[in-house]
């Protein structure tokens, strides 16, 4: 349940934030509703990108507690 909810929130958050930015820019420039429509799509794209990234991270993600074992071999900067 946790993972599915996580992916769902990523997608919805993308669309919501995109829509909000578009709406705010519309208020600023008085171009309603065109920027909001454009940014809704861009937000959807950002949301899908987030979902793909999260899903990729999930596949490689160890279970909670795994971190306790290999604490030292991770300095990749």
């Amino acid at each position, binding site marked *: 349940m*946790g993972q599915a*909810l*996580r992916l769902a*929130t*990523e997608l*919805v*958050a*993308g669309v*919501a*934030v*995109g829509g909000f*930015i578009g709406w705010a820019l519309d208020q600023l420039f008085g171009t309603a509703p065109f920027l909001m429509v454009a*940014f809704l799509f*861009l*937000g959807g*794209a*950002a*949301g899908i*990108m*987030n979902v793909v990234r999260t899903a990729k991270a999930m596949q490689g993600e160890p279970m*909670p507690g795994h*971190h*306790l074992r*290999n*604490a*030292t071999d*991770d*300095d*990749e*900067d």
Partner: protein
Amino acid sequence: MIGAAYAAEDVGHGDGHGGGGTGLPDPMHQFEIRRLIDLDAFGFDASFTNSALFMVIAAALITLFTVLAMRKGALVPGRLQSVAELSYEFVANMVRDNVGTAGMKYFPFIFTLFMFVLALNMLGMVPYSFTVTSHIIVTFALAAFIFIGVTIIGFWKHGIGFLKFFVPSGVPFIMLPLLVVIEVISYLTRPVSLSVRLFANMMAGHTMLKVFGSFVVALGLLGGWAALAFMVAFTGLELLVAFLQAYVFAILTCIYLNDALHMH
């Protein structure tokens, strides 16, 4: 949904039995904010609410726990000291694994954040208590604070070069303007998804507990046992979710911090 719940609250105010005439208790009643001490700060309503009370209790409990546990500082730790050291090790390893040794500078913040969210989630599991993290404004304030802080750290470490974080590599030049906008929106969704995840999990879980709890009463001595058995199992699951969400909140903060410090 929340608006409807608050509307129902007005009908059955104070007694917790609104429920829209079904006879069942209102499952949203537990999320009601009550003013305990009325305060007015420069025209803003800054009243001391039950939400604030539980935050104070959580902060006091954590302080009491760590101070009491480490008071002796024995070489061979006792029971309480073991728990304190375990929680330190847990968060320290989380920071080291996800941010690297450079992130240990921010360990006190991550530790405080993890313990605070964990204490609030766990306090919410106590009957008749109030779950502070089931209010989105609280989780969003935490997430927004983290988001702004991490962005400042990014610009502080890399200067204007932090903007390169928003430019994906290996992309045709024509596509760049579009992709940069998408990347920026993707970055801005971080506080939203971070806060919504914690809030949704806590609120959904506690509503479900209340709904099934009212089933126990409604089905009575004959049928209530099935719902009661489910409640026992579900309470265990909720304890797991309370811990897991605190863990996820802390680990995502680590990941965002890592992005700011190392930029992939």
